[in-house]
């Protein structure tokens, strides 16, 4: 059986510049969580933007249910894949609940407003994202972390089967980071949601099924947390001889000598 979501040998370059992603492949099956790690500028965001359909690969192909990405109708594809960007700027003071409700778009008829059921789903999504208290607030008045939770709720309201997240934890505090990972793990287990998430927070990656590491746009390592979160592999990924990883119980502690 072919993998449900599959990216094969992706290359990408901005304009006529050098390749920033080179020959990267990955696959995801329903209910699995994949973390993408790597140094700044290693091509993580470019990769995930290709997976979200926002950038078109220079070479290689992306398949969803064995069908080429470009052959999917955008609206149909939006029911399968949701994307949480690194940050969202807001020009207009939309209410948080309206932002979340926009996630229902691929499921509603073109000239219809969202139904009561859609509003209910949006509220549930806010609840799951831990942002129910923000529903009536204006998006422009929220902090970076609060915005991130609302945007996550929007992606959840989209009811995708694959969720792509670009460093969602970077502006979250310790408690909300843990809550995010728990929420994602819960959805992955109960609703068979697949997750592909970029993160710099290596401690979080212990909760994932697979880790893909990029270095200068190329795949440096791929495997289970046990295979990747090791001194030698991490030193290679970050090109730094002072990185250490230790297993403590079922958590992995990663640090760098200062």
């Amino acid at each position, binding site marked *: 059986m072919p993998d449900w979501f599959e990216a094969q040998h992706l290359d990408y370059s901005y304009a006529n510049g050098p390749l920033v992603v080179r020959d990267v492949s990955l696959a995801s099956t329903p209910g699995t969580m994949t973390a993408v790690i790597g140094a700044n500028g290693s091509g993580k965001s470019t990769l995930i*933007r290709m997976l979200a359909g926002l950038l078109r690969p220079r070479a290689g192909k992306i398949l969803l249910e064995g069908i080429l990405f470009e052959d999917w109708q955008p609206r149909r594809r939006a029911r399968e894949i949701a*994307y949480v960007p690194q940050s969202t700027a*807001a020009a207009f003071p939309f*209410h948080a609940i309206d932002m979340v409700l926009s996630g229902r778009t691929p499921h509603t008829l073109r000239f219809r407003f969202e139904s009561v059921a859609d509003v209910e789903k949006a509220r549930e999504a806010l609840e799951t994202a831990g942002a129910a208290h923000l529903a009536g607030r204006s998006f422009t008045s929220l902090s970076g972390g609060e915005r991130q939770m609302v945007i996550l709720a929007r992606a959840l309201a989209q009811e995708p089967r694959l969720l792509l997240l670009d460093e969602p934890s970077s502006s979250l505090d310790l408690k909300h980071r843990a809550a995010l990972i728990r929420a994602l793990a819960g959805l992955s287990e109960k609703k068979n949601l697949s997750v592909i998430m970029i993160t710099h927070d290596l401690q979080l990656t212990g909760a994932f099924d697979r880790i893909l590491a990029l270095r200068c746009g190329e795949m440096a390592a791929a495997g289970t947390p046990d295979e990747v979160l090791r001194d030698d592999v991490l030193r290679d990924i970050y090109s730094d001889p002072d990185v250490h990883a230790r297993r403590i119980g079922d958590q992995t502690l990663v640090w760098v000598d200062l």
Partner: protein
Amino acid sequence: MVRALAILTLFLIASMAVGLSVGSQHIDPASLFRDSFSRTLFFRLRLPRVLLGSIVGSSLALTGGALQALFRNPLADPYTLGVSGGGALGASIAIALGWSSRVAGIPLVFAASFAGAMVAVSLVRTIARTGAVVLPGALLLSGVAVNLIAAAGVLTIEYLTDPSSALRILRWLIGSLDIVGLQPIGRMLWVLAPAWLALLALSRQLNLIAIDEDTAATLGVNVRRCEAIVHTLCALIVGVTVSAGGAIGFVGLIVPHAVRMMFGEDLRIVLPGSLLLGAAFLILADALARTVLPSGELPVGAITGLAGGPVFLWLLRRRQQYAAM
């Protein structure tokens, strides 16, 4: 949604009544049945003027709302982005060449004005956009630059052309709703009504783009195509309105924000709401322009400019407060 549009429709009807009842000559409704002079005055001058006001107001407000969403910039409007200016330059060239020329049945002034507006909107967009981001400062500054270039172009044409054409350009540029008869209005509606509907049909896509471009794309909107369509429709609508009523400023800025304040941010309400309120706004502004002086009348563009400038500054101040957070 229904409530919002009902309220605005009632307001529009009331504004029309006001617009039809005021003027240099009082017209008693009863006299319309008896007196042919009153009838001529009413049907040849006053009614066309009110209708033109509503069409121009609707057009500018609708395009203003659409451009604000497309560029994610509350300060965008056909006037501030130089789209009206580009249209005005195009139309001036056509006027200098001769009012009545037609190419393939389309008045040259319409066509030239559309072309000018299209060039302006493309130019402003190309300069302000880097990747998926539209730089707000660059957008408005390139709008200013396009306006300056267009104004210089118009000035040059006025200087070079014969005095009667120059006077016509000058009178028309200030922005006036002075027309005779209903025929030109019918002609405009042939173009405008379909363009309005097409733009309204894109409300949902524009609403998602107003939130965020990448978000819209991952929710299934073809952003590039939508953008190209909205550009063309806005240039078409502005081109037609400018060639008929001159460059009337700030209607497209004030009206969508007024609708937002009353009924929220959802573009699916803001756009049809702007269509209705824009008409009412310009009818009232024109009624004011006709009556504020004891004799003669002010150009309506002066009224909207005086009202719109302060609103622009207030929005600018408010936006800086967002940005600071």
